[in-house]
């Protein structure tokens, strides 16, 4: 979808997210979800800013229910942050501001 944001499915979760050498952001999104649509360009912009320092993925919740359930994600959008194979920091959800997202990534890559 873009140079900096890649869409994955749950079968790639372990390889792309848990085994990543760089910190990873994973955004669960849904259709008919205005806050997901609102987040998309912000996620894209922040992904561009942190290119090479963190990896940005999106995962479509409807097609990946099992992983959503396993991770306890019950709302869209929800952004999870991973480092060294473990989820770290607080999750971001609902109406997410670009500044809020940027700050979370700054803390993640620090």
């Amino acid at each position, binding site marked *: 979808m873009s140079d900096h944001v890649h869409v994955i499915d749950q079968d790639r979760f372990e390889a792309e997210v848990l085994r990543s050498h760089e910190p990873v952001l994973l955004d669960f999104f849904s259709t008919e979800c205005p806050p997901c649509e609102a987040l998309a360009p912000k996620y894209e912009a922040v992904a561009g800013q942190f290119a090479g320092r963190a990896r940005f993925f999106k995962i479509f919740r409807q097609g990946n229910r099992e992983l959503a359930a396993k991770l306890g994600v019950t*709302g869209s959008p929800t952004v999870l942050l991973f480092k060294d194979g473990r989820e770290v920091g607080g999750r971001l959800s609902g109406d997410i*501001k*670009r500044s809020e997202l940027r700050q979370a990534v700054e803390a993640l890559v620090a």
Partner: protein
Amino acid sequence: MSERFDLIVVGAGPAGLAAAIYGARARLKTLVLDEGVPGGQVKTTHKVSNYPGFPEDIKGSELAAAFARQAERFGATIARSVEITAADLGGLAAPEKRFVLDDEREVVAPAAIIATGARPRPLGVEGEARFRGAGISYCATCDGAYFEGKDIHVVGGGNSAVEESLFLTQFARSVTIVHQFAEFQAEASIAEEALRHPKIRVLWRHEPRGFHGETSLAVMRVEDLAAHAVHDLPTDGVFVFVGMAPQADLVKGLVPLNAWGYVETGEDMSTPVPGLYVAGDLRAKRFRQITTAVADGTIAALAAQKYLRDRYPSRP
């Protein structure tokens, strides 16, 4: 280098987009700013039944998109997903309104209409922030599908709570509405529909007191207001619709607010700051509907046009 407009509207809900339609049709170079996608609260309302001109129910997201398309057809620019990182709304001496967007773009206009509306009010009880997105939701259209076959609760008893409970029955196995009063505040037609619905039951005169669980929400603690007793209800998810809180951050300190934080305006949506108008749900008023929001937006845009004509008579 800042970009100049005649009119900047903050908030692309029904009030802001109605203002943009009138502004753009009056040939004002009009910019609408929104932190998300256009539509305000309408875009996450699953259906709208009381907006004139639509004899059949219309999806809120479709009505929202139609408002935006109409404004854009007349030349208004809608800046989506932008965050206002600095603003100067001017004063008596310097009436220019300046907004910095995402720390990188500056836009300026001699008049502005603030239509930032209101956002869902949190309950303010223990555990609510922790389980947001992990069992607690404020948007049924966004998150309803996560609760297929589940037993969920809805908190509230107004139009939103009851309408969205009906919507959620298409996913959930059961929907229990928890309401602080002994009857709904919702319109009679939908209240009756909910009370007849086989998947919906109601806990009257109960209020949430806390949310508990390990990684995701498992239990909502409620108080039975009549019996003064506290119970723990196992739940798969809770949707909260207990009214709205005004988003007045941009104008705080500049304009008078009432006791609940809503902005007091003149009948023409004007504020004490020249060229600054407030429209829609952010205004202090008795009724907040899509129809009243578009009325406010219309009036604000017409008043802003008159202001610009009087103040800058040489403008084309």
